[in-house]
């Protein structure tokens, strides 16, 4: 409770309000401090008082053989995941709880979520309300069932103050391509920082997978906790609705030069943007892949297998994997040589085969963090480009929707 009150003071709240659920990120091991904190809670007899989902942990509990690192560290990662289960949290172990039938709040519900991509998705796409909670606060709110009445829990703070207007030079073909969305997310994070922005000029009715990719990237390059995509997200049927009828503080035009620069920044491997560059790894599913994305991997493989020596790995939620197992999809993907990872992610755990060659990803977030976390060079591309590159063993580029600079 002390932590919740401290949070309320920082946010300038006058009172606490009840929540209907929580998503807790504290179960990922970052050293003994994280275990010490959980044990302090367990020793105090704490239990969550609202339905609470868990974020990814340090290891894949269902496929522990995929762990390539220090077994002691694996043990500590597992211990922390167990500790949070003992505190009453559901062992969902996914960074995308909004993809679970029983992990997704309804529009307007007050919740306490951690995990930067989940926070953005919750506010922006689901329309449930959370502040940008971090480790420790998330479980404190889940135990007390209360959050400060402040920030994005309140309607006025959900108003867009910044408008990003897509310029006339952004081609319609690019707007139909998956690769735009993580790149636009990187631009959004840089432009918005922690402000709520509305993006105007995108096609209406964008898929949740595209909004997920956009938000995850924005929360990596900035501290974005909410955005509006006019015509797609529930609090932005119109630009005026996103602005709550007021004027924007700032309007910025986003053109191809800025988008191309952001796309190029996502690739760190020398020459990696060019077709033909050899790759050793393809990592998809950051945030955790939806069933639609798992099906897209199968579709793009079209019966082919990754080239010899190339690892093609997709991370997803254990619950979605169960669905994919029932459907036969998981078996078909495995028989083509696809590795399926659950409960964790390939950039936080030693999972990938060591390779001197770069890793390719369709995720702005993975591209952002993997070089620092696991020391790989990264090539960014769409899901289609990633899967076909895995098959060819070298970078394959789609018909050029990005145009020449």
């Amino acid at each position, binding site marked *: 409770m002390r932590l919740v009150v*401290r949070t309320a003071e920082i946010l300038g709240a006058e009172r606490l309000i009840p929540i209907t659920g929580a998503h807790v990120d504290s179960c990922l091991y970052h*050293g003994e*401090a*994280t275990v010490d904190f959980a044990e*302090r809670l367990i020793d105090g007899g704490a239990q969550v008082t609202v339905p609470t989902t868990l974020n990814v942990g340090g290891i894949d509990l269902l496929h522990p053989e995929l762990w390539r690192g220090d077994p002691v560290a694996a043990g500590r990662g597992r211990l922390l995941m167990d500790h949070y289960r003992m505190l009453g949290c559901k062992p969902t172990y996914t960074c995308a709880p909004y993809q679970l039938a029983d992990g997704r709040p309804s529009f307007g519900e007050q919740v306490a979520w951690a995990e930067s991509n989940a*926070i953005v998705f919750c506010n922006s796409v689901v329309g449930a309300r959370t502040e940008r909670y*971090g480790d420790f606060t998330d479980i404190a709110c889940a135990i007390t069932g209360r959050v400060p009445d402040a920030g994005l829990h309140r309607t006025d703070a959900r108003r867009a103050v910044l408008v990003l207007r897509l310029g006339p030079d952004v081609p319609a073909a690019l707007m139909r391509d998956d690769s735009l969305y993580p790149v636009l997310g990187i631009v959004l994070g840089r432009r918005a920082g922690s402000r709520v922005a509305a993006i105007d000029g995108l096609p209406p009715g964008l898929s949740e997978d595209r909004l997920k990719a956009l938000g995850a990237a924005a929360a*990596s390059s900035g501290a974005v906790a909410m955005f509006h995509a006019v015509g797609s997200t529930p609090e932005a049927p119109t630009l005026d609705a996103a602005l709550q009828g007021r004027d924007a503080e700032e309007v910025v035009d986003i053109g191809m030069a800025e988008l191309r620069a952001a796309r190029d*920044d996502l690739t760190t491997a020398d020459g990696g943007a060019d077709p033909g560059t050899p790759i050793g790894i393809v990592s998809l599913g950051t945030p955790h892949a939806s069933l639609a994305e798992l099906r897209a991997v199968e579709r793009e493989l079209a019966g082919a297998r990754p080239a010899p020596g190339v690892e093609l790995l997709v991370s997803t939620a254990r619950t979605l994997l169960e669905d994919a197992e029932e459907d036969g999809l998981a078996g078909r993907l495995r028989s083509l040589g696809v590795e399926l990872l659950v409960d964790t992610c390939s950039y936080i755990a030693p999972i990938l085969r060591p390779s001197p060659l770069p890793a390719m990803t369709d995720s702005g977030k993975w591209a952002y963090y993997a070089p620092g976390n696991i020391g790989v060079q990264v090539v960014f591309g769409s899901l289609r480009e990633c899967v076909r590159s895995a098959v060819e063993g070298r970078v394959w580029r789609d018909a050029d929707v990005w145009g020449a600079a």
Partner: protein
Amino acid sequence: MKGRVLADGAAAGLALVLDEPLSFWGGVDPGSGAITDARHPQLGTSVKGRVLVMRAVRGSSSSSSVLAETVRAGCAPAAVLLGEPDLILAVGAAAAEELYGIRVPVLNLSPAELDSIADGAAVSVSEGGEVTLL
């Protein structure tokens, strides 16, 4: 200068003025304090014992844990001075104080005040949020 206290405490050290915002998770090795974010212009610099000056915040909600772990490992910054009130770092400091009794003050100052702090300047922070350039 008087900052808004997000986490209280007293500290002194040399300023490390970050050129770009830094996510502690994915950006700092808690076992050494070194900046590991491959995209950060100050890659390789250590935050340990420094008065960290960061105008904007970004990134992961796991940064609370990573800040707390730097405290446990003895590699924490001496203090964190922010241009925005950031809950995630403030809570990392609060949790570390609960667990280990070690305080890392986290303060929110105005951009103009942060601009007056040069990289490498000796800075002291006293309880209640007073910031003095030595």
